C-alpha cells in the first residue's frame, strides 16, 4: 500500500514569551493512500498542531514528515506552496470568504493553480454538484447553514483535485444531523474519488462512523494507533480506554472487590452471557457499566462487572471458556475514567 504521510519522531515545541511548551513529543505514524485516518484526543492534546505539520502550516522542531516520500522539511517556500495544492484542508469554522459568492469561493484554489477562467467555472460547478449545492452558487456564505457552509468548503477543497483532505474538527460546529450528513459525504468522496482523508476530532462517534484506522493523541504523545475495530475491541492505553469506555459508571459496592471488563464483538454480542452465568452456575455479578456501539457495521459491546468475593476465578473461567475477552480493571481506573 502506498504511503501518503510518514511521520518519524516528530516533536513540536512552542516558545511563548520565553516559555517553552512541548505540544508534540516523538510522534511516529504512517498514513496510507485511500484510507480515512482518524486522529483523536482530548482538547489541547496537540491534534491541530499535528495536522498543521502535515501541510507545513507549522514547522516541526525535530523529526521528519514525508509526503509521498518527499521530505516536507527540505522544501523551500515556493515548493511548499506547490505541495499544499495537493493537500486540501477544511476547518471547524469553515473559513469561507464572506464577501465572495459560493461559486467564487470554490474557484479560489483553481485560480491559485492558474486554471483559466471558463475551465475554472466549469470545474467549480462540478464540485458544487458533488456536494449537492449547485443551486446555491450565487449565494453568499452568510446566507447558508453551517452544514451547507462546510459543504462549500469541501467543494472548495476538492476543486484542485488534491491527493489528501485534512479535516480539523470539521464537524465540531455542526449539530448531529448535519455532522452525520457531512461524514456520509466524506465517506462517499473517499470511496468514489479514492481520496485519502485525515480526520481530527475529539468525538469518538466520528471515528466510529467513518475511520478505518485511528491514532490516539494524549498530551502530545501518540498513545496508540491501529485499526478502529481492534482499538474499540481491545484498547491498550489509558487514553484509549477513556475515549472508548463510558465515563460515568456506578461505584463498586465494595472497596476491595475485583472488577473485570468483558468485551464482545459482532459474533458474541447476540448471546445472553450474564443470564447464562446466573442460570448455569448460580454466580451473581454486579454490572457497573455497559455500552454497545456499531463500528463499520459490526456491533461491539463492553461491560464492567464487579465480582462477588470467592467466586472470581470460576466466573472469569466461565467467560473465557465462551471466548470472551476478559480484562482486570482497577478500582482507581473505574472511578477516574
Amino acid at each position, binding site marked *: 500500500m502506498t504511503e501518503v504521510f510518514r511521520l518519524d519522531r516528530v516533536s513540536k515545541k512552542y516558545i511563548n514569551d520565553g516559555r517553552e511548551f512541548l505540544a508534540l513529543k516523538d510522534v511516529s505514524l504512517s498514513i496510507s493512500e485511500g484510507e480515512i485516518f482518524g486522529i483523536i484526543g482530548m482538547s489541547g492534546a496537540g491534534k491541530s498542531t499535528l495536522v498543521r505539520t502535515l*501541510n507545513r*502550516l507549522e514547522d516541526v522542531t525535530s523529526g521528519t514528515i514525508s509526503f509521498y516520500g518527499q521530505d516536507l522539511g527540505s522544501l523551500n517556500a515556493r515548493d*511548499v*506552496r*506547490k*505541495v*499544499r*495544492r495537493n*493537500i*486540501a*484542508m477544511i*476547518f471547524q*469554522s469553515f*473559513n*469561507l*470568504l*464572506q*464577501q*465572495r459568492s459560493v461559486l467564487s469561493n470554490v474557484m*479560489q*484554489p483553481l*485560480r*491559485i*493553480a492558474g486554471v483559466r477562467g471558463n475551465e475554472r467555472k466549469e470545474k467549480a460547478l462540478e464540485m458544487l454538484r458533488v456536494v449537492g449545492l449547485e443551486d446555491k452558487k450565487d449565494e*453568499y*456564505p*452568510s446566507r447558508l447553514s453551517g452544514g451547507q457552509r462546510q459543504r462549500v468548503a469541501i467543494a472548495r477543497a476538492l476543486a*484542485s483535485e488534491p491527493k489528501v483532505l*485534512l479535516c480539523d474538527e470539521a464537524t465540531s460546529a455542526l449539530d448531529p444531523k448535519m455532522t452525520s450528513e457531512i461524514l456520509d459525504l466524506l465517506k462517499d468522496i473517499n470511496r468514489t474519488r479514492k481520496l485519502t482523508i485525515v480526520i481530527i476530532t475529539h468525538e469518538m462517534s466520528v471515528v466510529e462512523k467513518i475511520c478505518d484506522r485511528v491514532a490516539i493523541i494524549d498530551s502530545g504523545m501518540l498513545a496508540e494507533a491501529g485499526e478502529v475495530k481492534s482499538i474499540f475491541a481491545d484498547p491498550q492505553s489509558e487514553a484509549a480506554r477513556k475515549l472508548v469506555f463510558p465515563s460515568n459508571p456506578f461505584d463498586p459496592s465494595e472497596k476491595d472487590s475485583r472488577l473485570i471488563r468483558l468485551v464482545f464483538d459482532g459474533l458474541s454480542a447476540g448471546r445472553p452471557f450474564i443470564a447464562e452465568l446466573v442460570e448455569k452456575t448460580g454466580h451473581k455479578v454486579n454490572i457497573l457499566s455497559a455500552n454497545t456501539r456499531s463500528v463499520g457495521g459490526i456491533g461491539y459491546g463492553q461491560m464492567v462487572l464487579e465480582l462477588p468475593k470467592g467466586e472470581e476465578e470460576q466466573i472469569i473461567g466461565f467467560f473465557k471458556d465462551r471466548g470472551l475477552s476478559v480484562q482486570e480493571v482497577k478500582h482507581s481506573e473505574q472511578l477516574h475514567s
Partner: protein
Amino acid sequence: MSSYIVEAIKNGIFETLQMTFFASLLSYVIGLPLGILLYSTSKGRILSNRPLNLIFGLIVNICRSLPFLILLVLLIPFTRFVTGSSIGTTASIVPLTVGAVPIVARMVESSLSEVSPGIIEAAVSMGASPIYIIVHFILPEATPSLLFGAAINISTVLGYSAMAGVIGGGGLGAIALQYGYYRYQKDVLWTTVTLLIIMVMTIQEGGNMIAKKARK
C-alpha cells in the same frame, strides 16, 4: 448677502470639493499600500518583518502626532517645491495629503487586522502566495470595513481643507475666515459653516450606506 458673495461661496464649494477629492485620492494612493505594509509586516502576519514594521510605524506615528496646523506651516517649502506656490487650492492639496496619509494608513491597517485569521490560514493551506493572499483574500474581506474607514477619512480631509484656508488655501474655509472673521459678516460665516457641516455629513452618511451595502 450680495451676489458676489454668493458667487464666492459657490466657487468655495467647488474648491472645497476639489481639494477634498484630490487630497483623499492621493492619500489613498499612498496610504493604502502603506497600511497594507504596516499590516502585513507586523508580528505573526504573512510578511512579518520587525525592522521594516518599526521604521514605517515610527514615520506614521510622528506624522500623525503633529497638529495639522503645524504641519501646514512646516510643509510650506515642500509645497512650494512641488506645486510652485504655497497658496491656493492646488497648493493646499499637498499638506492635506501629507496630513491624511498616516491616518489612512492606520485606518487601513486596522481594517485589515479585522480579517479572520482562519480565512488567511485557509488561503495559505491552498498554496497561495503572500501577495495573492493580500489581493484576493484580505482586501476583499476587508472591503466593507475599508469603506467605513474611507467615509471617516474623506470627511476628515474635508474638515482639514477648511483649516488650509487659514494659510492661503481656497475653499469654504478661506471664505469663512475672510468674510466671517476679518469682516464680521456673521451671515457669511454661518452659511459657510452650515455648508461644511452638510458636506461632512453627506460624505459620512453616504459612505456608511455604501459600506453597508457592500457587506454580504
